[in-house]
């Protein structure tokens, strides 16, 4: 199964951000945007187009699932669709993380980190 999932790598950064944002809680679209902005200190702001076309692709590939609509008590009283990470989604995020970690250590071994740092 990992072979199939590895075919999806490398993930576009928006995809990885969304998977990470869903890793600890079910969230609706706007909450994902907020979570990503918060985790990146405001450096990454997803726009609705990127967010929902990515969500559609993740749903198609079975990396996330859609939950029933419900209200978001914190935001306002609009009904929102919530999304949840599937085991495959979680695995893909882990694989991507491993890939990125390897890249980072590769860079470090080449001595690039100290030059920058």
């Amino acid at each position: 199964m990992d072979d199939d999932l590895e075919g999806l790598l490398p993930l576009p950064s928006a995809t990885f951000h969304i998977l990470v944002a869903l890793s600890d809680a079910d969230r609706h679209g706007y909450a994902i945007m907020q979570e990503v902005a918060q985790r990146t200190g405001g450096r990454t702001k997803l726009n609705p187009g990127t967010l929902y076309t990515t969500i559609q692709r993740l749903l198609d590939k079975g990396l996330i699932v859609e939950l029933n609509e419900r209200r978001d008590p914190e935001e306002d009283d609009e009904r929102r669709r919530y999304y949840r990470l599937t085991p495959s989604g979680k695995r893909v995020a882990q694989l991507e993380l491993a890939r990125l970690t390897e890249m980072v250590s590769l860079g470090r071994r080449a001595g690039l980190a100290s030059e920058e740092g």
Partner: protein
Amino acid sequence: MSAASRVPVWAERVYAALLRTYPASFREEYAGEMRAAFRSRWREESRAGGPLGMAHLWLAVLVDTLVTAARTHGEVLGRDLRYAARSLTRRENRSFTGAALLTLALGIGAVTAVFTIVHAVLLAPLPYRDPGRVVRLWETQPALGIDDFPASMPNFRSWRESARGFSQLAALREASSNLTDGRVPEHVTGFGITANLWDLLGIQPVAGRAFTPEDDQPGHGPVAMISEGLWKRRYGGSASVLGRTLDVNLVPHVIVGIVPQDVGFATDADLWLPLGHDPELEQSRGDHRLTVVGRLAPGVALGQAQGDLQRIASQLEREFPDTNKGWSVRVAPVRDWIVDAEVGQRLRILLAAVALLLLVAATNVANLQIARAGSRLREIGVRLALGASRARLVRQMLTENLLLATGGGLLGLMIAWGCVRGAATVLPVSIPRRDNLSLDLPVLLVAALCVGATALLAGLLPARMALRSNVQDALQQAGRSTTGGRSPARHALVAVQLALATLLVVCAALLTQSLVRLQQVALGFADPDHLLTTRITRSDTTDERIGDNREFFEALVEQVRGLPGVVTAGVSSEVPFGADDTSMTILPALPSESVPKEGVQASWRIVTGDYFQTLRVPLRRGRLFAPRGEPRQSMVLSEGLARRLWPDGQDPLGREVSLGNGQRFNVVGIVGDVRQLGLKQDPTPTMYMSTSWYIWPTMSLTVRTRIEPAALIPDVRAAVARLDPHQPVAGFQTMQSAIAANAAAPRLNTVLLASFAGLALVLAAVGVAGVVGHTVGQRTRELAVRLALGSTPGQAVRHAMRDALRMCAVGILAGLAAALALGPALASVLYGVGAYDPLTLLLTAAALLAAATAACWLPARRASRISPCVTLREG
């Protein structure tokens, strides 16, 4: 929530408009969520970002929406294409896919191939600067029915001085010559031109310089420009050729420049000389020999320029009534001169015919699709039930047709490519610019347009039909073996197909009859299968050498007549079916009331007496020219001309006639009428002068042979060489091939149109058979009930055929009506048969009805073999 954080209506609307760029299926799913997310971000920015933040938000949202919408469209298309490809290549669909691909490839290929020719000949810009401003000027004499005559030099000079509507006027005349320096002499096509021609057209020399006005002055050293082709052929493209001398008709000329091979109006010209100063041409306003072209002055319309010239022509008429009375001027786009009106019309008819063929092909595919849709109802029903939107299904069906049409289009392009490669050799020489055929961008765009239009045509109707029924109907009907039976849309398509096929078949039948009649016309001379002609240009063109030239041609006739296999030979200034004509007005010297006072415009030819015997033009009265010692003023008339000069039946023999140039002649003989100009043109009234009167440096030799004429070419060449080893001989042609070339354009048109019509008829018949077969299949139960209730098998068959046959009849009638409406467009290319020929229309209708009946009957026969017991028990 504060008022400031509420999203204004306009922002909601703008965002909603942006969302419309996404595919409908995506919008249905996510538009609501996206609007909510947008609102949230809007509020956030309005709280924190200020105006700059808002601007940033809008920009980010705009770019994000457009990029992701494009990507989503791409993904949907990709999915649809994969689905369509899987569906089309499934085993049960392969015969459908193959038939549809072949049909579309033939249709699109035919349209593309024909459009390539139409584009090269009629549409592609000529190789001039701002070609739309270049015009041709003709002299006209309405009273004599002349509307495209060359101009005389003095008239050209008067126009050039007084006309205000042109920035430039230039003139040229044919000046084919012999290149006589050193090596074997070569005959080349050439033109004498005014120095400004290249500047007027906007053609730059490939190397060297163009002519200057000084080159035209009397006494200036002779100069020449040569074509790119001659430059490469004779000089290997060497730059050192500039400044070298080239002997043209024995006179050394300095080569000053190289001209591109394609100058728009002549691609075979190799030699360009200054028009120069010809005292004979300068004098007579009545001697019309110049081709005049002009460039319209900035801001001047063609009509204004024409009005201006007509004013000058009227002035000249008053000043020089002897030569200019009744003469006016006509201005037309230069393409009207380069492309003959009939050639243009033939090409347009051909293009219309292939467009109709493509329409028949697309209709056929639509029909096949509807038949398929019937059996796909279940699949469609299931997908609708699973929540697919109708728009989504329509899009998918259109994608499938787009895929089919693109495949057909690619195959069609390959067909067109093959046709275009072969076309240059097959196309008749009467089609100008046929060397410029290529599948270039405009042609590819038209092919793409055909693909798109066919996909829509063949896809929309079946898609709409398939989706009209609701989910439940679709699922229920698919389960049964009888699905309604009658299919009005398919019947309507059958009617359309037959109408189009009828139209094409009528056109093909009319053109075929024209061609047959064209080949049966009386030529006015006998046995063209044993005639050989060649054109010989003497290098010494001066009038002092005219006696020598006459001796040469007389000796040549003697020599050739002595060759084994030759019956007789003669010399003439032009031959029938040659390229050119010379004509003048003629009048009886004694004024007569029954002849218009401006005279009769008649062709004139200089001939030896044995020319008539060689062609076997019958002598009606009097005598032919004597071989030697014929009085200079003797003239032989064609009987048609004699009838027009003396309509009251007086004997023309011994009478005097006077010509437009003032000379007088005595009529010594009357010969039969000859088709001089072509099969389609009626025999021209013709006067024949003897070579004892005058002889041109260029004359045609005609030889009547006992054997295959082409076999004599080496012997004739050797006979010429014995008389003058430096005399080039070019352009041998058998009379049969000249006649064939004359009919080549109509023949090609007829053959192509007949093939298109045949193809359309086959497609229509297949369409009809398909519909009837489908009907019988769908209505098996109903027919079984009828048989059980006492219908005879014959009645059952008739019943199965009834609806389709009725639609066929409607289609055929509509096709006939369309043929009647389009008659005038066809009339100009028909010969000897009217566009409304009732017999042709009736026979075509009968033939089509017979074909339609056969196409209905073959599949309908199955109805008679239905076994009521078995069908009803199983049903």
